[in-house]
């Protein structure tokens, strides 16, 4: 319509999508909402990574499988007749046991080893959890016990600019829960003794030891916190699709989020997640058709790469200044 021959492509990229957004605002709002929900869940996963990275400098590859494992534990316990909320508490308890085990078996023997060694160890942990999980729960996808946990389902819809916007109640819940979790963690990290100890350990092991901070205790706390975040993520993701080992892949989605947000920043994980989630959805709907769709799977990495060109330390990452 607006596009004339020599400028056809430029017009399709720079004009048409914005015209469409303006022309059908209800669809645009719907897209933004879906992007926001996807983004919230990415944020949650990234949060698990950030927690552990901050306190121990370890990139925990196992975060994805921890999501699956905690969700499977919850569903599995319920399947053998444990009431839903008791199963939830037990699943949390099992994440605590896992934190103790990881500290004792993986981290403690590897203290003072280079980061890459610890990174590899988390690979080992991943494969252990996959095998162990399949052994106990079997490999079939499970259904999340959404109703038993009283998570609201169904949808609300409202008229907007001549169209209808629909929102899943589940998605609204997920957004609220993620928001709460982030707020609690942010306060915990910045305002309390243990939060301060966590940051201290991240800065210098030696100095932390000298003031009597116990590294072992700190590691258990962060792995437990990451485990709880994994459990919440597992419930929310599981409720949207199903609980299966395929969910583990979402861990890879956290990478562009972390690159965007910076590996050490909790607000960064949140904002990064939202940018990736919304960018992905908007890109898919408005720019996808130009090259035949299907760009959602790699767009996130593109966004992160372009971002790296301008801010190598990420959105909120600590600026690296080295005195020479």
């Amino acid at each position, binding site marked *: 319509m607006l596009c004339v021959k020599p400028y056809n492509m430029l017009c399709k990229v720079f004009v048409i999508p914005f015209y469409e957004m303006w022309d059908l605002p209800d669809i645009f709002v719907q897209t933004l909402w879906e992007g926001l929900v996807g983004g919230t869940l990415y944020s949650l996963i990234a949060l698990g990574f950030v927690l552990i990275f901050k306190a121990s400098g370890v990139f925990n590859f196992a975060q994805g499988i921890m999501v699956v494992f905690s969700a499977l534990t919850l569903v599995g316990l319920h399947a053998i007749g444990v009431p839903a909320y008791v199963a939830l508490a037990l699943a949390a308890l099992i994440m605590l046991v896992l934190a103790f085990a990881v500290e004792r078996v993986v981290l403690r023997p590897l203290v003072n080893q280079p980061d890459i060694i610890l990174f590899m160890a988390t690979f080992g942990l991943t494969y252990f959890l996959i095998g162990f999980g399949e052994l106990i729960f079997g490999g079939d996808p499970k259904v999340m016990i959404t109703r038993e946990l009283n998570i609201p389902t169904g949808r609300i819809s409202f008229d907007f600019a001549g169209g209808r916007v629909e929102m899943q109640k589940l998605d609204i819940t997920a957004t609220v829960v993620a928001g709460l979790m982030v707020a609690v963690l942010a306060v915990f990290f910045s*305002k309390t*003794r243990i939060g301060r100890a966590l940051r201290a350990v991240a*800065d210098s092991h*030696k100095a932390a030891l*000298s003031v009597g901070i116990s590294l072992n205790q700190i590691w258990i706390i962060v792995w437990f916190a990451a485990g709880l975040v994994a459990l919440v993520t597992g419930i929310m993701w599981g409720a949207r699709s199903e609980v299966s080992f395929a969910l583990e892949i979402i861990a890879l989605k956290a990478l562009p989020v972390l690159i965007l947000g910076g590996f050490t920043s909790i607000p960064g994980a949140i904002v990064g997640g939202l940018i990736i989630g919304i960018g992905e959805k908007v890109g898919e709907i408005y720019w996808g058709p130009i090259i035949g769709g299907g760009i959602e799977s790699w767009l996130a990495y593109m966004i992160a790469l372009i971002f790296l060109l301008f801010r190598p330390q990420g959105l909120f990452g600590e600026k690296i200044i080295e005195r020479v």
Partner: protein
Amino acid sequence: MRAPDETVIKAGQTLLSVENVSLSFGGVKAIRNVSFDIKKGEIRAIIGPNGAGKTSMLNVINGFYHPQEGEITFKGVKRKKMRPHDAATGGIARTFQNVALFKSMTTLDNIMAGRTLKMNKNFFWQLLRYGPAEQEEIQHRRKVEEIIDFLEIQHIRRVPVGRLPYGLQKRVELGRALAMEPELLLLDEPMAGMNLEEKEDMCRYVIDVNNHYGTTIALIEHDMGVVMDLANRVVVLDYGQKIADGTPDEVKADKAVIDAYLGVAH
């Protein structure tokens, strides 16, 4: 936190003693059969040429290194080795030769971190940061402000310490150690790399800490003028061995010490 078999040590009694301690890294013998003691309330200097084993000795005392032989007696409790956590809970604080601070945290947070062991409200109160945890935070903050006043670092309270000049970082590190209200304070070259004025300030703080809080201090220092002025007693190490032990005047006159410093073929 006081272990049941610990005794209260009065001024002038032995607070800490190391007996026949030897420490080696593979074939390198860092400390060979060294014994000395630190009395409650004194300023004890450990001196010696580079590589004499002074820092290793501090690391043994605060549990970073575990000696292969010998024993450490602290407040009447005999141990084969210290652990950093036990040392800290027992009241041993320290500073490091190359400043070890939490660089991305503010001065205030660094010193608050020194209060970790004094704060004991549990995890769940901490998580909520409500009620007891909040009161505790306020109460400890008061103590920390007192230390900040004492060290005259009010103006850098909110500055991340990584941005501070070296002299001030050293002072913040001292503040963090003081926040532990230690019985024994280990200072590893507190005046290294400082100019004259900064050195004089630091000396004043060390003396004040000793007088005002009655803290026992063990310090490593290369500036002989400083050592002779500050210390009540001096132990001299060379090549991992103790070559002299006594008052500054005795040590200054010791033949072995003069040889070690002026360089005589070993």
